[in-house]
C-alpha cells in the first residue's frame, strides 16, 4: 500500500487505536490483579450521562467540557459505588451494578429528553466510537510527517490520546513500587507507610482518565476490552509483573493493529464491499488473543493454589 493512501486514511486511526489500547491496558494490569477489573466497565457506562450533562450545560459538542463531564461522572460513580457499598453493606459487585446501570439509564433518558437531532450525539456513537472517521485529510504521503502545515491538520484526538498515554505511563512509573506492593500485599504496604486508600483511588482516577480519553476517540466498547483482555492474556504468560505489563502492551498493540486492519480490509479480502466496525473488531481480536493464551499460555493455571473447581 502506498504512503499516499495509507498516511491520510489509516495511519492516524491506527495510532489512535494503538495509543488508546495501551493507555487502557497499562492501568488494566493493576485493576485485574486487584480484582477491580469491572471498574472499567462501570466507568465506560457512566461516561454517557457525563457527556450528556456537559452537552446540556454548554449547549455544544466541544471536546474539553465533554471530557470534563465524563471524568466528573466517573468520579461521581466511584464515590457513589463506595457510598452504596459502605452505607448499605452491599457486596461491591452489586453496588457497582446498582450505580452504573442507574447512571446509564439516566444518561439515556437525558439524551432522549433533549433535542440532539442536530448534533452528532447518540448512544450508538458512545458505544462504538468512530475510529474510522479520524482521518488526516491534510496528509499527502509519508513526507507529511515532517510538514508542519499538514501536521496542524492532525485529528485533535491523536495528540490528546498521546498525552493521556504519557500521563498514564508517568503515573505508573512514579508510583511503581507502592502500586506493586499494595497490589500484592496491602497490609504490608500499609505497614511501610503507603497510603493504600489514596493510592487505590488514584489508580481508579487514572483508569478513568484513560477511559474517558480513549472513549472520546474510539468508543466505550474498546475501553472495556482493553482494560481487561490484554492484561488477562498477559497474566497467562508470566508470573512476573514487569513481564506481564510488557506482554499486555504487546497484546494491546497487536489487537489494535490487527483489529483495525481486519475491519478495514478483511471484508474486502472476503469479497464484501464495506468495512466493519473497527472498534468491535479490535475487541474481538483481543478476545481471540485471550482465548489463545487461556488455552496455550504457559502460566494459565493457578500455580500453587489449590484448584477450587
Amino acid at each position, binding site marked *: 500500500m502506498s504512503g499516499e493512501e495509507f498516511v491520510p486514511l489509516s495511519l492516524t486511526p491506527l495510532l489512535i487505536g494503538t495509543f488508546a489500547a495501551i493507555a487502557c491496558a497499562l492501568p488494566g494490569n493493576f485493576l485485574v490483579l486487584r480484582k477491580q*477489573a*469491572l471498574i472499567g466497565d462501570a466507568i465506560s457506562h457512566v461516561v454517557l450521562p457525563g457527556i450528556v450533562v456537559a452537552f446540556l450545560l454548554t449547549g455544544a459538542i466541544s471536546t474539553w467540557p465533554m471530557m470534563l463531564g465524563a471524568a466528573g461522572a466517573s468520579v461521581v460513580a466511584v464515590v457513589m459505588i463506595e457510598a452504596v457499598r459502605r*452505607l448499605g453493606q452491599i457486596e461491591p459487585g452489586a453496588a457497582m451494578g446498582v450505580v452504573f446501570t442507574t447512571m446509564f*439509564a439516566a444518561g*439515556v433518558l437525558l439524551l*432522549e429528553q433533549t433535542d440532539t437531532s442536530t448534533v452528532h450525539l447518540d448512544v450508538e456513537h458512545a458505544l462504538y466510537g468512530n475510529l474510522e472517521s479520524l482521518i488526516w485529510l491534510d496528509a499527502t504521503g509519508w513526507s507529511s510527517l515532517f510538514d508542519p502545515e499538514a501536521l496542524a491538520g492532525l485529528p485533535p484526538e491523536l495528540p490528546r490520546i498521546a498525552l493521556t498515554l504519557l500521563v498514564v505511563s508517568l503515573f505508573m512509573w512514579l508510583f511503581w513500587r507502592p502500586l506493586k506492593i499494595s497490589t500484592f500485599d496491602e497490609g504490608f504496604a500499609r505497614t511501610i507507610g503507603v497510603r493504600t486508600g489514596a493510592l487505590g483511588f488514584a489508580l481508579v482516577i487514572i483508569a478513568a482518565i484513560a477511559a474517558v480519553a480513549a472513549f472520546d476517540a474510539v468508543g466505550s466498547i*474498546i475501553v472495556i476490552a482493553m482494560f481487561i483482555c490484554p492484561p488477562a492474556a498477559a497474566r497467562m504468560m508470566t508470573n512476573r509483573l514487569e513481564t506481564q505489563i510488557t506482554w499486555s502492551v504487546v497484546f494491546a498493540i497487536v489487537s489494535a493493529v490487527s483489529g483495525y486492519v481486519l475491519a478495514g480490509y478483511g471484508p474486502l479480502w472476503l469479497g464484501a464491499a464495506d468495512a466493519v466496525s473497527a472498534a468491535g473488531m479490535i475487541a474481538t481480536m483481543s478476545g481471540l488473543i*485471550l482465548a489463545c493464551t487461556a488455552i496455550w499460555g504457559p502460566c494459565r493455571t*493457578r500455580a500453587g493454589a489449590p484448584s477450587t473447581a
Partner: protein
Amino acid sequence: MLQLGYNATLVAIGATLLGVSAGVTGTFLFLRKRALVSDAISHATLPGVCLGFMVLVALGGDGRNLIGLLAGSAISAWVGLLCMNWLTRHTRLAEDAAIGAVLSVFFGFGIVLLTVIQTMGVGRQAGLEGFLLGSTAGMLRADALIIAIGGAATLLLVMIIRRPMTMVAFDPEYAAARGLPVHRIDLAMMGLVMAVTVVGLKIVGLILIVALLIIPPVTARFWSERSDRVVLLAGLAGGLAGYLGAALSASAPNLPTGPIIVLVSFGFFALSLFLAPVRGVLAAVLRHLRFQRRVHIRQGLLALAQGQKIYEPLTLRLLRRAGLARADGVATETGKARAAKALRDEKRWEIVRADQAHEATAALYDGLRDIETVLTQDQIVEIDRQIGGPQEVPA
C-alpha cells in the same frame, strides 16, 4: 391501567411480569455474590441477536421475528456463559476479569456483526439497535405474549429449584457435602438469568436488563434477613418498578421505557437504603445517636458519683434533659441516686471481671450493660456482700 392505550397496556403487563421474574431470579444471583455475571450474560446476547437476524434473512424470512432473535440471543448468551465459567474454573483469572472479558469481546463481536448487517443492504436492521436499549414502541400482541410466557416459565422454574439454589448461595461447601451438584445448580441459576435477560431484551434492552436483575434484590435485602421473604420482596419491587415505569413512560413523549423502569427501581432502592428499619441509613444513625446518649449519660453519672466536674457539654446537656443534673453540673436527687447505682454497678462488674467463675459473664462487659440483665438477684447479693454496704460519698 385502564387509561393506558392498547400498546401501553401490553408494555405494562410485559414489564410487570419481567420485573417480577427478574427480581426473583436476580435474588439468587445476588445472594451468591455473583450479581455482575448478569452483565456478561446480557452483553453476550448481542452477537446472537445479529446472527439470528442474519440466519432469518438468509432463510428468506423477516429478520425481525422475535422468537428467532430471542433463540439466537439465548444461544450466544449460553456460549458466553460457558466461556466465562471455563475461564474462571480452568485458568487463573478471577471471576471479575472473566466477566469483563466475555462482556467486552462478545459485545465487540456483536457490533462487528451489526455493521455487517448494515452493509447487507437489507435495510431493516433498525429494529436490531432497539435491542441495545429496548424499544417498546412497536410491540405486538405476539411479542407481549412471548414475554409473558417466558417470564412465567422462568418464575415457575425458579420456584422448583429455589431450595437447592438458596443452599448453594449461602453455603456451597455444605451443599456439596450434602451431595448437591453445586456446579450444575450454578449453571441452572445462570441459565435462568439468561432466560430473563433474553425475555427482557425487547422491553429494557440488553444494557439495562442488568439493572432489573440487580437493583430489586439489593432493595429487598434491606427489608428482610430471610431469603424467602427477600425473594418475594424482590419480585414485588421488580414488578412494581416494571409497571410504574411502563405507565410513566406511556404518560409523556420522549420517556423511553427501559431507562424509566430502571430509574423507578433505583428510586425504591434509594428509599430502602435510607428508610429500611434495621439496615437502613436512618436506622443506623438513630442507633448511633442512642448509643452515644447512653455512653454520655453513663460516663456523666460515674463522674457525678465520684464528685468529678463534667466538662463535656453534650454530657451535661443530656444529664440535664434527663433531670439528673442541674445546669451548673450539680446532681439532682434522682441524679444522685442513679449515680450511686452506676458506681455500685461498676464496682460489681469489677468483681465479676476479676472472678474466674464469672468468665462468661465478664465477656459481656461493655461499660453500658446493666448488671441485672446478666446476673440473677442472688448472684448480685453475693457480689454486694463482697463489696460491703454503701459508704458516704465525698462531698
